[in-house]
């Protein structure tokens, strides 16, 4: 288990609790009360810390190395029915972008999502969750396949951004994202989007246009990462905390601005502290929204999706 700097009081108490339990089992001393007290304190401390998280702390949590990634959700939701599909039919198969079919109950879904690695080797393999144009084009190919067969789409987002590489530019990173955004606005099947970690800018929106867009509680979604924002506007990397506040990038802020539809609560201590509960909450939210959306005709679906995006923005005059 890895701990973030603001989680250190939790770490300390958890260690105390472990010790207490060890003493209890290895000696005759009755430590039940002591253990209970520590446990209560641990719970209170957790509540206190997680109640007052700053925007930057949530950014840290969204990048927690133990956080579940796209494939973890896919495994939990679809089990053995998941059939991964590869390639953009053009250049190559992008490992930072996952896609395939799977079933929840009797219903098939097309799932797409950005994928991060869990150690140095797989992080490189997954290009740190930064997709190339072929990743976006693979996602589009799969969404078009879903549309053809009337299969709803689930998009899971966890990316620090689209990859800013030389070849990415040569192969039209901007065009690939733009094309996806346009096609997703008029896709004739329900599209349910979930930000499960980082939602960085065009890299996220490139698979992020949907009828219902949800954010897990400790995730962020904005036009730029707080670090890059700090470096451009403050001309220094030191202002990431202020940038995180200023960007209003938390789930709560995004909901208030009506840029996302729903916040999914995470277990106390974040998504990674109780993975099973997180998967359950995500599955429940997806199914609930799908049940609503499937009642709409393709025309109603597309019209209300377009209307939703037409409403976004604040101006005067």
């Amino acid at each position: 288990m890895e701990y973030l700097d603001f989680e250190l009081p939790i770490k300390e108490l958890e260690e105390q609790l472990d010790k207490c339990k060890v003493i209890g089992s290895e000696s005759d001393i009755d430590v039940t009360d002591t253990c209970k007290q520590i446990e209560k304190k641990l719970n209170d401390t957790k509540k206190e810390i997680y109640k007052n998280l700053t925007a930057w702390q949530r950014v840290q949590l969204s990048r927690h190395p133990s956080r579940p990634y796209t494939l973890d959700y896919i495994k939990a939701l679809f089990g053995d029915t998941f059939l991964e599909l590869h390639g953009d039919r053009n250049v190559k198969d992008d490992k930072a972008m996952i896609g395939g079919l799977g079933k929840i109950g009797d219903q098939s879904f097309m799932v797409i999502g950005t994928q991060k690695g869990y150690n140095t080797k797989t992080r490189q393999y997954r290009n740190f969750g930064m997709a190339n144009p072929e990743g976006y084009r693979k996602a589009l190919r799969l969404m078009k396949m879903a549309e053809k067969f009337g299969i709803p789409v689930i998009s899971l987002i966890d990316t620090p951004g689209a990859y800013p590489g030389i070849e990415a530019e040569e192969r039209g990173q901007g065009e690939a994202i733009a094309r996806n955004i346009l096609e997703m606005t008029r896709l004739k099947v329900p599209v349910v989007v979930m930000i499960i970690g980082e939602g960085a800018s065009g890299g996220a929106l490139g698979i992020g246009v949907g009828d219902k867009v949800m954010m897990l509680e400790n995730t962020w979604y904005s036009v730029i990462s707080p670090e890059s924002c700090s470096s451009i506007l403050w001309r220094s990397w030191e202002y990431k905390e202020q940038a995180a506040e200023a960007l209003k990038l938390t789930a709560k802020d995004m909901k208030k601005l009506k840029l996302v539809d729903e916040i999914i609560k995470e277990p106390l201590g974040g998504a990674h502290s109780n993975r099973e509960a997180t998967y359950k909450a995500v599955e429940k939210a997806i199914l609930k929204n799908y049940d609503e959306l499937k009642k709409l005709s393709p025309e109603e679906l597309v019209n209300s999706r377009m209307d939703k995006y037409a409403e976004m923005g604040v101006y005067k005059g």
Partner: protein
Amino acid sequence: MAWFKRKEKGIQTKTEEKKDTPKGLWYKSPTGKIVEAEELAKNFYVSPEDDYHVRIGSNEYFSILFDDNKFKELDANLMSKDPLKFEDTKKYSDRLKQAQEKTGLKDAVRTAVGKSKGKKLVIACMDFAFIGGSMGSVVGEKIARAIDYSLKNKIPFMMISKSGGARMMEAALSLMQLAKTSAKLAQLAEAKIPYISLCTDPTTGGTTASYAMLGDINIAEPGALIGFAGPRVVKEATGKDLPDGFQTAEFVLEHGFLDFIIHRRDLKDRVNLYIDLVTNQPYRA
């Protein structure tokens, strides 16, 4: 003995009587060619000796594209608010005020309808002078409404991009303008109304990741910088030297994302030629 001798010390001329050199009489292109401002304007703001396309704004593009510079501006009074109360080293609200005072513009895009070679055309043109041509709520809304005007009146739509990307001070609100404008372009496409996207120097970031790359034809001015991530970001991220001409219009054409590159003097003719051809209408010579 000195040739000139100052009898009275200090500067005696009063401020009111000070003779100012008029600004902007001459233009010097990056290769060092000098051209008279008036001549530059006559030459479509292209330096005659080296064909350098000077960065211009909506005023100039409208004068180049609309017949006799006659047009009706749409939604001219739409202005940015500061919904996030954004503050970095400066308040966003102050930035907006300063940009408005400096440029005389309301925001980073102007939209208009007028006749080009005798037929109506809707043009949305970005102004780089206004906070780097950045796209926020106003830019997105004005473009969306201009497309609505095209849809309603069945008039071809032309977008002139000149932008560093989304406006950070409106954070995710800016990001969602990519979706808003793209949704409108999807409607335009369904209605089979031609959309011409002109990429000028520079067209990067969120602009490239939305309307700039979604034209029925994407065209560009010579030498324009066009890309998703800016060259500095790519260099930092990859640690590699960038190839020659990386992200220039010529590079982007070579990689298949532009239909052609157009000299500004031919812009009006070529855009209208495309419209005549694709709509199967008589050619306007």
